[in-house]
């Protein structure tokens, strides 16, 4: 798989490439100024509060939503070109299926509509969940229906799998089953995955790439392994009450003052010098701090930002 940090010029190395993407609904912007790159072969978590624009972004990537401005490429092909259709599979929030179809008929639909259909893989996924092939989809439980939807998505043999909160309506056991299934199928085939989720722990376990949205804009994008060490939790004395001056040149994402003491999450810029207690934050702490502080400039790890612009980078 392509290395995240060495774009080789062939745009196919990027599973997704957004440049200045924006979507306007009525008066408000659901997404604005979205530029990022997702290298092929990664499992990317799409994080953000409700209304951050996650579903809109996935909608644009699956041709369900037309962007107001900017463009998105899937493996180098503009998303409005029908050629991208066989390359991605999508699992929506409510996993719509034809309720009157049987499971077998649902898989047959996949076979009829997709040139690269892999019936063996799809049947294996359904069978491993003990879902009867002749049952009507409307009579299945939530977990079974999700499994059928997964089978339909993986049977398509996609290079990019887009998931919109795939586990949100599952019980913990089914969620665990589905996560395992997702990871094993994706790793086995080198599928790029972009998955939105509220479950931070879920993301921490599964994702090696992160895209953080808030208020329709990108807050952070890049390698999970690089995003985390870029931050530090600092505890120290704040004589003036505002530690920002003392912490320069580091970027303070969020801070809290308790008496004479402050706790701050900073984006480090060089070594931290000073009489402070420094610790490494968890992914959850970094995400929450960024989601709570919309004014902090967005953070991109190298390669995660689309080239040909970059004037907004701090």
């Amino acid at each position: 798989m392509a290395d995240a940090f060495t774009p080789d010029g062939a745009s196919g190395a990027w599973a997704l490439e957004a440049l200045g993407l924006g979507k306007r609904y009525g008066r408000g912007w659901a997404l604005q100024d979205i530029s990022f790159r997702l290298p092929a072969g990664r499992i990317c978590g799409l994080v953000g509060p409700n209304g951050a624009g996650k579903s809109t972004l996935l909608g644009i990537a699956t041709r369900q939503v037309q962007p107001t401005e900017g463009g998105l490429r899937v493996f180098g092909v503009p998303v409005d070109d029908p050629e991208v259709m066989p390359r991605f599979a999508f699992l929506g929030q409510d996993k719509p299926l034809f309720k009157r179809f049987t499971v077998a008929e649902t898989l047959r639909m996949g076979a009829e509509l997709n040139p690269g259909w892999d019936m063996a893989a799809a049947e294996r996924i359904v069978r491993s969940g003990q879902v009867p092939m002749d049952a009507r989809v409307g009579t299945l439980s939530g977990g079974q229906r999700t499994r059928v939807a997964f089978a339909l998505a993986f049977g398509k043999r996609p290079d990019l799998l887009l998931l919109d909160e795939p586990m949100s309506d599952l019980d913990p056991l089914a969620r665990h089953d589905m996560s395992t299934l997702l990871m094993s199928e994706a790793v086995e085939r080198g599928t790029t995955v972009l998955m939105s989720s509220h479950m931070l722990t879920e993301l921490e376990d599964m994702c090696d790439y992160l895209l953080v949205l808030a208020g329709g804009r990108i807050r952070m994008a890049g390698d999970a392994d690089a995003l985390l060490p870029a931050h530090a939790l600092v505890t120290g004395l704040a004589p003036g009450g505002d530690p920002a001056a003392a912490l320069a040149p580091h970027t303070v994402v969020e801070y809290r003052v308790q008496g004479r003491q402050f706790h701050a999450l900073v984006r480090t810029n060089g070594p931290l010098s000073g009489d402070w207690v420094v610790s490494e934050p968890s992914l959850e702490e970094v995400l929450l701090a960024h989601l709570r502080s919309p004014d902090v400039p967005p953070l991109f790890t190298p390669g995660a930002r689309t080239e040909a612009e970059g004037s907004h980078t701090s």
Partner: protein
Amino acid sequence: MTTTPTEAPRTGRTPGPRMLRGLSWLVVRQHRAALLSLLAVTVLGSIWIVYERSRMKDFLDAAGWPGKELTQPTYDGGGAGLVMAALGGLPLILAVFVGAPLIAGDQEQGTAQLVTTQSVSRLRWVATKFAWIYGAVLVTAAVLSALFTWWWKPYRSVFSSSWSDGSVFDSTGPMLPALCLFLTAAGITIGVLARRTLMSMAITFIFAAAVGVFWSEMIAHLAPTRTITYPLEADMPSRLNESLEVDRWIGSADGHLYGWGLCAEQTEAASDACVKEHGIVNNVYEYLGVDQMPAMQWTGAGILLAGTAVLTAFVLWRVSRRPL
């Protein structure tokens, strides 16, 4: 792919022969109930029409018609009126129950998202839906219309409705298929725009009812009218018995026309005086003849089919331009 003699058994994995493939299979499977209903309507409707026709024939044979006059001028027995009411309601029923939910149902249930994230384009999917549903509607309407026309033609003088009545005019010849296609197209279009099944069905119902009212006014405008002048005291020529009256005047010898009611006075003397005063000598009758019916029906069907084409093109254009 190489063709080998042993290729046939490979399809044996799926039960039954795979007669349909790709989008056609999906559309037929998804709309199986609607398509089977149309088939049932075609078969049962055909049997009903044939049965009612034979009942009418038996009755008329027993009465000695056409050698003897009927005791009543028209035949109202049996289900003739019911058949005509059913045929008259068919376009509206198709529009509301087949047209409106066709795409709106997928938009509402999210299955439009399911299908359009497979590897086929929206345009191809919607075009396939159109092809199957139009085909089924056309077959149903054409068969029923042909059978009803076969019943009505030899017995038209004993039907209680005249040829220019909507119940006959819209149910014979090319009119029934054209009306069914047009209103189905309207239902599909309304559905695509409204995106909600129930709402689009309600709007389609109102639209189809409005079209029905408008169309009954349109019938008299589908062909140029003819005018005949005959003496004031004479009876109307009997060949005009079946004609559709568009207007009627009284005229003077120099060709001046007056309204029919001009000399409708309270006493006969006053009427005669009025007739004399204006020099009225003729009846002038503007009409559409029964022989004009086929031309009128084809003109009407042409208008409706053009409307169908416009609506279909609009939906396909819209679907190809923007997501459902």
